Each structure stands twice: as structure tokens, then as C-alpha cells.
């Protein structure tokens, strides 16, 4: 785990896509939180978290994603996730994240369902 993370925001229609590439920890995950808060502030209600296939997410990073997903539920925003490796898909499911944010196999699939 090299503790580096790249986060970028792009829009497709009403959906804000937050691209995440690198290692997600409690520290680096704050970049994702800031990007999420930024798009929320712009009035976006549909957010797709696009993980890079090589991304590593530790338990602290999972807590960041839980926070975003739970906030989405509480604020009636739709939060979706794509790009996770099968391993992390299982982990996300294990901790109950999928209750708040559906995981899609691809960006197109996720966008099609918004």
C-alpha cells in the first residue's frame, strides 16, 4: 500500500462521477469526501464512485465509503459504485455497504440505471 490516491470529478448529465485511483485509507479517503461534498454542493443528487481496478481499500477507507453511502441514504442521493475488484466487492458486501450503495460491474451499467 503506497498511500497515494488520485481523485477526479467529471459529469455526465445529472451524474457526477468521482474517479478514484490508488489506495483508499482513512487519510487519503478525505480527498474522496471532499470531492463528494463538492458535487453535493453543486446540487448533484446522483453520484457514481468509479474505482480503478488496481485500487486498494483498507478498513479505514471502507469507513470513508460507508460515510458517503450513509449520507447519500440520509439525504436521498443515489450513490453507486463501480470498478471494484471482485475481492473488494465481497468486502463491501460483507460490511453491509451494498445496503446503501449498489455495486455495478461497469460505468455504463451504472449510468444506465440512474
Amino acid at each position, binding site marked *: 500500500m503506497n498511500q497515494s490516491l488520485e481523485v477526479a470529478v467529471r459529469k455526465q448529465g445529472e451524474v457526477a462521477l468521482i474517479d478514484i485511483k490508488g489506495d483508499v485509507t482513512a487519510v487519503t479517503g478525505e480527498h474522496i469526501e471532499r470531492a463528494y461534498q463538492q458535487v453535493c454542493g453543486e446540487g448533484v443528487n446522483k453520484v457514481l464512485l468509479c474505482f480503478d481496478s488496481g485500487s486498494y481499500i483498507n478498513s479505514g*477507507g471502507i469507513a470513508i465509503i460507508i460515510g458517503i453511502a450513509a449520507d447519500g441514504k440520509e439525504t436521498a442521493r443515489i450513490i453507486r459504485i463501480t470498478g471494484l475488484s471482485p475481492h473488494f466487492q465481497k468486502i463491501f458486501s460483507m460490511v*453491509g455497504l451494498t*445496503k446503501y450503495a449498489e455495486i455495478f460491474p461497469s460505468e455504463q451499467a451504472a449510468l444506465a440505471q440512474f
Partner: protein
Amino acid sequence: MIEDLADGSQLELERRIFHLKTLNDVSQVTGALRDPQAILKNLLMMMMGTFGVRRGAAFLFGTGEFPLKFIAQRGVVTDLATLLDPRQNGAGWPTNLPIGEVVTLNRDGLADPVSHALASCQLQLWVPFVVNDLHYGGIALSEKLLGEVYSPEDYELLGTIVNQLTVALDNALAYREIEELNRGLEEKVRQRTEELRVQHTRLQEAHGQLELRNRFIENAFGRYVSDEVVSSLLESREGLQLGGEKRRTTILMSDLRGFTSMAEKLSPEQVLTIVNRYLGVMVDVILPYQGTINEFIGDAILVLFGAPVTRDDDAQRAVACAIAMQQAMATVNAQNREEGLPAVEMGIGIHTGEVVVGNLGSQRRMKYGIVGSAANMTSRVESYTVGGQILISEATWTEAAEVLHVARRFQVEAKGLEQPLVLFDVRGVGGEHNLFLPEQSEALAPLVNAVHVRYSVLEGKHLSDAEFAGRLVKASATTGEVLTDHPPLLMSNLRMQLLDANGSPLLGHVYGKVLEQLADRPGVVVRFSSALPEDVLSTLLHRESASLLDA
């Protein structure tokens, strides 16, 4: 079903692997972080991510009035710092908590205020812990996202992570303590360095002032006092007061008798040679007696004993110095003779009295000097001396009488003084100095034929208009006996002209001082200011022709 079991086992296996990875991540984080706040926050989030929890809090209490030191909370709306403040809940850290064990919150009968506070924030359990026996803390979690009950394995994992947390916090707190100590030490070092710097600056300033002062002292006195006096001035804070002050001082004044008239017959180079030789020899004599050479006035030297440094034996040392100076004249005259220069004679007067000493002059030109009647009196005493003589006033006599050897005591009627001036002709000083003037062995020889003398009395440097006649009937090289109907006063200075039978001058003017008035006939004994040359004396003593008066 088997497939379900297999799926279930696979899931459990992956969960355990995930937990192990979490434990590994916890080790890495706790090993890397030094800030208790960051440790609490990171471990809380790791726990929340591990168990899939929306809300959680981690906190650490210390001792003291407001003991809550660090707190991290996520997903909890309430400000837990205020909620957990013992000043709000009226209680301190609860005792009898199961340290390291899970305390469930979603039940009745919670016994302590911390548990109550956490329960009010929709937290489901918490684990109390202790750090180094001085800090108490806890980590609290809400229900799982999945709504599952926390399993025994979950409790075990919680316990393990809390153990790692307490070790990390212990290290972090110790690190902070050391950092604070270091900061304190650095601050002390910085303060001390600053103090030293200030002290150093002050020392440098004081040193600069001292150097200035020392330079001043050396410039003012260095060439005119002995090294011992300079050292005494430099070492003593009170020894030197450069402001004016009254001080009892013994003043010595020396003068080459008859040198002014002698100088008229010499070249400027010869005059300087004689004066500088004389002054140089005298300075070397004076300094060992700790006299302060205040001034050279032509061939006169003014020396102070008692300023700027006072000693009990100032008067004794002054007299001893005077005798040593007279003894040293032999050296001066020996060198003069070698160079074909005339011998010179010195008279010394000494007086003791109060003078004002201090810096005389202005900022632009200043010297250490004396002012007062005692200085004038010394000059007057000296004016009564003949060559080779030391006269002291009664005041000096009083200060040093027990060791002084005196040839005679006499009085002079001094102009401007109500009382006669009492003077002592000093021949030696006993005691530790034990110095004596050479015996005067010159006898007066009668002249075969008396020589006519015409003389006037000098009043200061001014020659009186009156001229008197007399006869020189006895003489030596330095002294003559003059018979006259108008004997001048004792200590009068005379300008005499010795005349031949035709009334023409035999010599140039001869200056002298009346040492004695003859008891048995009208006349005086005169000490010549300059010794008569041998041939002149011989001529005077043996000349056959009578003077005009004998005719």
C-alpha cells in the same frame, strides 16, 4: 446446502482474512503515528470499516480539572466532548468499569454517566481502556449496517485492536511528554542563551567602559606615576575620583637654582641637554617613591604625594624622595662634566596641606592638577632654598618629625603672611628610608683684599631699584660673607656685582640668597646661586689690589 456451507465458509474465511489485514493495517498505523488524536481517529475508522458501522467515537481522558484530552467521532451528531465533560455530568471517570471488555449500551441499567452519554448518541457498545494508569479512554461503535449482532469473534477483535490502541497511545503520550520537555528545555536554553547574550553584551560594554577608563588613567597618569600607582588606580573603584575633591597632600617642588641666568650663556641645545638629563634622572628617582609627577615647569618639577592615591607615609616619602633627588644630582653633574657642560644645583621645597585635586581645564584640554594655597606655599618654601638644600614647612615637619634629621629651624618674614614662615633645613630621614644629604664641608676663606660689592634685592623676579654697597670679605665656591651697612633680610635673593678697584665689574652678575645674618657685625652670609669657577675664586681670594673702599 453443501454449496451454502461452502459459500458460508468461504465468506467466513474472507472475513477473517479481512480482519487479519485490518490488524496488520492497525499495526502499521499505530507504528507510524505519534499524535494521540490521529491514532484515535485512524483506529476508530478502521474499526468502523471493519465492522461496517455508521457511527463511532474514540476518546481519551487524562487527569486534571477538564480531563478530556482527545476525541474523535464520526457519524455522531452530538458534541461528545461537551457530553462527556465531567463538569456537565457532575461526575469524573467512572470507577469499576470492565477495562478492555465490551460494555453494551442498548439496555437498561447503565450505571455510569459515560455509558449513558454514549447510549444517547445511538452507540451500541464501547470498550473502556486505560493508558499508563493516568489516562482513561474508550472506543464506542453503533450497530452494524447489516444489523447483525456483534459476535464473540468481533469482541475478540475489538479487544485486540483496543490493546494495540492503548500501546500506541502510551507511546504517543510519552513522545508528547518528551517533546514538551524538549520544548521546555529548548525554551530554557533559548532564554539562557539570550540571558548570556545580554550579559555578554553588558560585559562587553562594561569592558569597553573600563578600557576607556583605563586608557584615560594611563594617559592621564601613566607617564607621571609609578606602575604601582597605576595598578592601584585600576584595581580600586574608590581609589580614583576624577571629579574634584579636597585632599591632604604633601607637595614637593624642585628647581635648578640660578639656571635661568646660566641658560643665557648656553646654546639652546645645551640648555635642553642639561634640563632633559636632569628631568630624566629625577623622574627615575621620583617614581619608586610613588610620587605623582604633576608638572614640569621648565626646569622645575611639581610632585604630589597623596594624590591620586593617599598613603599614611606621604610626608615621609616626600622627604626621602627629595633626599634621593639631591643625591642623584651627582649623576646629573657627572654626565654634564663629561660633556663639558656646567654643574647645576637644585633646591627642593616641601609643604603639606589641603588642596583641591581633579581635572583642570575643559573637555578639549584637561589635566589632573591641584588648586589651593598649599601649592602656592610649596612654591614659596622652595623659593627660599639654595642649591643642594631641602626646606620643609612646619606642616610637613609635623607629619614626619619622628624620622627627620634637621640642620636648623628658622623663620622668615614672608610677604603676605601674617605669621613668620617657619622652615626646617632637612639633612636626612631615618626609619625605613635612612637617607642623608652629604655633609657640607666647604669653609669660608678670608679674602686677602675685600672686594667691593654692589647689590640689589630681588623681589620675586623683579629687581628693586635700590642698590646697596658692601664688601665681600670671605668666600668659598658657593658662599660668601658680605659686610654691609644695610644687611638684607634673611632668605632675600640678591643680585650682586663684584667690582675691581676702578669700579668695573670683575665678573658678570652673581646671584645669591641670604642664608644668615652675621651676629657680630653688620653683614650677611650669601649662598651663591651658581658656584664660582675655581680660577675666579682663587683670584678673589688672593688678589693684591684693594677695592675702592679700601682706598
